[in-house]
């Protein structure tokens, strides 16, 4: 499909994806089962006759079935002099059941862009992989890396296309481009904010306390690692929906490196020596 795009092959998008089955030209057509940036109409394959917004309203109101999407996680990222630090926990919860303690909540879009995930795991993984595809296409077309600002804008526009349809995603796009280290927060509502420090998920308030208090613009790299670890460790200590291990990444000028993967219980025991 990428080759088709690059070679400029034109195809006519059909309004109803279901009608494409059985046509002669199907093998040339980009099956609209995923978002294609640049087309005028939305091509996500929604089942015919179903309106997502009304369906979801019925799920969330009191007299209907109540599907409560919990953003059970803690992720944090902050910019400092030597780049961007990204730290996430690794617990996936389904209601009160811990589905996994070892989930990867950072998606490595490319060697110089990272995206974090919070909210619905499925939504995050899907849309960020789509973002990875778009970033790759951009690089092929324009022969230079996409900027962090543009990448976050792509993701934001994807979210806006499905606004009100029940997507749940809170993500931070981190990278290093020509303007230096970049950090953007993108939301399923279409919020896109550039900032120095963000934390998402239900454990975010705990992380904010630690990082606000320990942040210095001219921290050394080791201090920054420690701050990121502490933020996640304390958040997992108090928040029931966060836990597992801390995955720590450092975005440098020439790409990101994965710093460590440490169990939070060990970290907490180290930090709270006096209490135990």
């Amino acid at each position: 499909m990428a080759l088709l795009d690059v070679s400029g092959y034109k195809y006519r998008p059909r309004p109803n994806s279901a009608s494409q089955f059985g046509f002669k030209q199907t093998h040339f057509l980009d099956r609209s089962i995923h978002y294609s940036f640049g087309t005028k109409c939305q091509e996500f394959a929604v089942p015919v006759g179903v309106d997502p917004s009304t369906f979801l309203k019925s799920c969330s109101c009191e007299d209907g079935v109540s599907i409560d999407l919990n953003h059970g996680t803690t992720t944090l990222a902050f910019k400092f002099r030597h780049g961007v630090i990204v730290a996430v926990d690794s617990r996936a919860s389904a209601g009160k059941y811990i589905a996994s303690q070892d989930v990867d909540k950072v998606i490595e879009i490319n060697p110089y862009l990272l995206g974090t995930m919070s909210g619905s795991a499925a939504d995050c993984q899907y849309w960020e992989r789509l973002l990875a595809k778009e970033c790759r296409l951009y690089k092929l077309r324009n022969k230079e890396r996409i900027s962090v600002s543009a990448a976050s804008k792509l993701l934001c526009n994807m979210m806006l296309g499905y606004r009100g349809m029940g997507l749940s995603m809170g993500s931070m796009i981190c990278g290093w481009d020509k303007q230096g280290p970049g950090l953007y927060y993108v939301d399923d509502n279409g919020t896109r904010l550039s900032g120095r420090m963000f934390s998402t998920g239900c454990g975010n308030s705990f992380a904010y306390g630690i990082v606000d208090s320990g942040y210095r613009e001219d921290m050394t790299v080791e201090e920054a690692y420690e701050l990121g670890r502490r933020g996640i460790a304390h958040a997992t200590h108090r928040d029931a929906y966060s836990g597992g291990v801390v995955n720590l990444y450092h975005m440098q000028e020439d790409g990101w490196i994965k710093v460590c993967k440490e169990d939070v219980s060990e970290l907490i025991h180290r930090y709270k020596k006096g209490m135990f």
Partner: protein
Amino acid sequence: MALQNVCGLQHPPLFPEWSAPLSQSFMPEESTPLFGGGVQHGGAFSARLPGRGALSPLEFYMPISEYLTQSPINFGQISLSSAPKNLLNNNIDIIHPSMPCISLPPPTPCSISPSVPLPFTLSHGTTTLGFAFQGGVIAAADTRSSCAGQVACPNAPKVLPIHSHLVGTTSGTSADCALWKRILSRELRLYQLRHHRRLSTGGAAKLLSHMLHPFKGTELCVAATLCGWDGGGEKDENHAITQVTESDSSSQSAAVCKSKSQQVVTARSGMCGPRVVYVCSDGLRLQGELFSVGSGSPYAYSILDSGVHWGMSAQEAACVAREAVYRATHRDAYSGNNVDLYHVTAEGWRRRERENLKDEYYREKEKERKRVAERKNEKKGV
């Protein structure tokens, strides 16, 4: 009221300022004819401790139903003429037709009066915290009182001293907290007068929790952290609540237990020392080492978790508490303005000067700026 109780009057007459006690042994004929016509506004309520003779289990005053219909503040209340009456009331009606109708305590106050619709949604925004360490207990809180998205009062005191060795932080509805704190103070003072010693923090918490229990399920919202020092020795009645300004805050509990007592009462072993108990109007009562309550509590918790340990000094403890409240006010919209800090030791509570956090914010910014400039100069110099 205190004087009567101490004197041991069995059946206190009805006073217009307080509601009638709802004891089983209420004797209408002993009531003084202090009522003029109509209903008094004795709608306040308070509780009595057991121990007043063989009389009573814990008795609770309930709001007199008439008060609610006659109150000048009518939040769209419906008429309560259908409130349940009982045989006692019939007696009263015969003897004193002007007396207010009093219902015997049902299991919950809900059956006396239907819940009153509030004029606006209450918001409970605050940051309060309390923790114990070797040098006593620290209780700290912000001072912003918010109401429906606006700051009603930027200087509200949220840490209220209850008696010389006990302070309570308050969170929830300010009115409820202030009232119940006063009721608790009164009851603890009575206890002290009767038994010649202070009630322990755990005991005070239990008392508060039981007093709040009948209101479970109503709109009452009180979440208090009682922070106190349980001493062993007896404190005489002249020991006023003074601000001890210069006392050494890291004194050992053992030494103080034996000091300043006129009549030594054998203290229960192992009960001396700092104590923090959380009491909530849902009925929850938890003892612990560290609590933070309010909308800003998550921000404070992480700082407290990383900074508090048993062996810390009083100076460090005050710093951590201040920092925790400061960070919480920085991120939480419903907390802010100033920080109040109380330190409770064996000698009593001591209050630190109220600090404005806006100044703290600018001071920190200034420090940061200076440090970055310094580093730049260093680099230039090298």
